[in-house]
């Protein structure tokens, strides 16, 4: 039994912290908004705001400041719902201890917010238990990569994030798929919406093989396994370090760690091309497109998700052309 679902979108919200306070963490994948967003408004931010505000079962909604549009969405959501909305500061800087302390202070403030909603204070033992459970479940999800199609793998990550507790104690029993054919590529970018997961099928249908889902909804934002030597002594410190100190994101300043991570993944997985999915008004990703191409020296295909609707025919044609170049 939980005290209700806590919904959010930002990968820097530790699901373990939500669960340790007695709530069910749910990192949702919003559906496309019924109406087109206003000019200048990111389609994802609008879709999240609409989906969150309409969710009458949620016990709370958490929004973070990692992106300006999402920060501003918190106000929009709060105006449309009676569900408590918590805006958490996630520092953009990371190279000095003050930023790490601010993140931890904000996590503790989030904990007090949960308690104010009737949650239980997180005990060290309880937090360690949840962290171990989620860590193992996450390892299981990671381990399933060779057994699933790209789309199923990404959907299973999304599904785990949507309800991590459901994965605790479950192991995968299927065997590996046949070795993948096609040019190994990475898809990177912001979060995918429910409708956009089809892109993973389209890549494989047009001659590619998704060797890495580096979108915000994919592998990139899965926190690394916890340091088991530290876990029992300092679970909250371990949690903060693993999330804030470990998840690579282009919104960090500087965002050098994102490029280091991408370089490592390109080498490890033999990636030969990059597909970057971005929304029309997402400055964070759009500003990096040219740099990613210059830096990686790989063929890069930007896929503009515009207002959230990826046109399948146009996308197919672009992908086909891209794979002709990549081969």
């Amino acid at each position, binding site marked *: 039994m939980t005290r209700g679902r806590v919904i959010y979108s930002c990968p820097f919200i530790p699901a373990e912290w939500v669960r340790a306070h007695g709530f069910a963490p749910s990192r949702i994948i919003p559906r496309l908004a019924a109406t087109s967003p206003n000019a200048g408004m990111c389609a994802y931010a609008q879709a999240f705001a609409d989906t969150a505000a309409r969710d009458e079962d949620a016990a709370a909604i958490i929004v973070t400041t990692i992106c300006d549009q999402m920060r*501003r969405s918190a106000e929009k959501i709060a105006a449309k719902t009676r569900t408590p909305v918590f805006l958490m*500061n996630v520092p*953009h*800087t990371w190279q000095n201890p*003050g*930023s790490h302390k601010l993140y931890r202070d904000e996590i503790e403030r989030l904990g007090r917010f949960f308690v104010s909603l009737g949650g239980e204070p997180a005990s060290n033992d309880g937090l360690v238990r949840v962290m171990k459970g989620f860590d193992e479940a996450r390892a299981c999800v990671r381990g399933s990569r060779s057994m699933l199609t790209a789309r199923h793998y990404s959907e299973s990550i999304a599904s785990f994030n949507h309800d991590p507790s459901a994965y605790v104690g479950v192991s995968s029993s299927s065997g590996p798929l046949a070795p993948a054919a096609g040019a190994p590529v990475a898809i990177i970018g912001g979060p995918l919406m429910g409708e956009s997961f089809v892109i993973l099928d389209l890549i494989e249908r047009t001659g590619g093989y998704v060797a890495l889902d580096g979108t915000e909804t994919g592998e990139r934002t899965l926190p690394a396994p916890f340091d088991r030597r530290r876990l029992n002594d300092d679970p909250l410190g371990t949690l903060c370090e693993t999330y804030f100190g470990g998840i690579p994101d282009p919104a960090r300043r500087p965002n050098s760690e994102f490029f280091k991570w991408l370089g490592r993944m390109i080498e490890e997985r033999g990636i030969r091309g990059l597909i970057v999915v971005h929304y029309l008004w997402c400055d964070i990703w759009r500003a990096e497109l*040219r740099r990613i191409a210059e830096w990686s020296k790989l063929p890069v295909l930007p896929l503009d998700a515009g207002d959230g609707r990826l046109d399948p025919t146009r996308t197919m044609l672009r992908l086909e052309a891209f794979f002709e170049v990549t081969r």
Partner: protein
Amino acid sequence: MIGQPQRITLDEWDFRYAELCGQGMVEPSYGGPLRRHVDDGGDTRLLRLRYDDSAAALRLWNFLLTEEDRLREARAQEKLLVGAMKDLGTVPVMAYSAPNVVAFYPDGAWWIPCVMEMNAGLMSIASSLGLDETFCPVRAMVGAFVTQAHFPIPDMLTCSVGATCDDFSAIAQRLEGLGHPILWWEIPGRRKPDPDERAIALPGGFEAPACQVEFVQSELERVKAAISDLSGAPLGDEALCEGIRAANHIRRILSELRTLAFTAPKCPMPALEMLIAEMLAIHFCSDRDEAAVVLGELLDEARARVEAGVGVLGAEAVRVFWVNPVADLRVMNLLEDCGGRICGTEYLFAHALDAIPEDLPPMEALARMALADPMAGSSADRAERAIGDAGRFGSEAVLISRIPGASHCAYEGAVIGEMVKSRLGLPVVEVEVPPIADALMPTLRTRIEALIETVLAWRN
């Protein structure tokens, strides 16, 4: 005896300049006729603007339009240059407290495409680097770094991040990717203190929890250490206090100027010159002492006009509160051409107009000021401040000018507009102003005229 002030064209300024010289006008070293900025500097937009006809306004324009020369001269004199990005009014106060350091505001390059009517090619360069028109016009700054034709590459670059617009953060990161190292410092999203937290009053009337002030102070300590390293001399409290006093001197002049310009029965200083004057308070246009002199002269001129009961506009002009700075300066003229006058502004840096507390340790005072940034809080906070100022200055209407592509503009206009309407009952119009708005002038004119006519109908 003061004459009837007027808004005049550049052609008219040629005659006016000769007239003022004939009257014995004494100019500073950067003085001269405005036309030379078109002929020698390529600032062709000046041909389309209307200006105040005073010697004080001439000095203001010459001061603004010679900043590039000043920066090159500072470099030649081996002064150290600090480019303070996205930081509206904090790091320059610190930098000018250090010996041999000059701070400037690279973001100011956002007006180059307007002033040079796109001839500098900065937007094209930005686009070629992946920063297209979906970004705020401040992307011109990247072009200015590439061409190095508008300011020398600074010895140190700082940029505030956190609760800032994504456009600027992304553009600055792109700049760093091009090989310009940046000292990033964080301003978290300002929030209301929880009941169990110590609340700290900020300049401008907001509150923040003590822990946020302490955090920003620690971030500014990093900037201070970097400036000290750069200048080779520790930046002590005494120098910072002196720097704060000097900044407050400028802010006090500007405050009096704004109050006069916004509340006098007849507007004593046009909207365009007032916009430039406000901008000087953020970064002093690369010469803090001269900025005080320039603003002081403008204030003297406004005072004399108010005392004489004259103004650049009639007493019937509709009193408009303006939200956000415009990328095209010509639109400030347009408001007056349509029968309006500026009575209150929120150009994204209201906090840089407030006095910095002088009764606190200087770094804490600066942290409080930085955290009071209207952009660091919610749109509702920003609206609160605008509502307070609009009421104080007797504004009759509110005009929100969106900045094309800016991440905040898609959200806050609606919030500010709704709050203004429900709390003050004032009419509100939103417009979008690109760097060259000529093609949109008929639309902009129609929308502004509708706002003015609404107020006039209410008056009757």
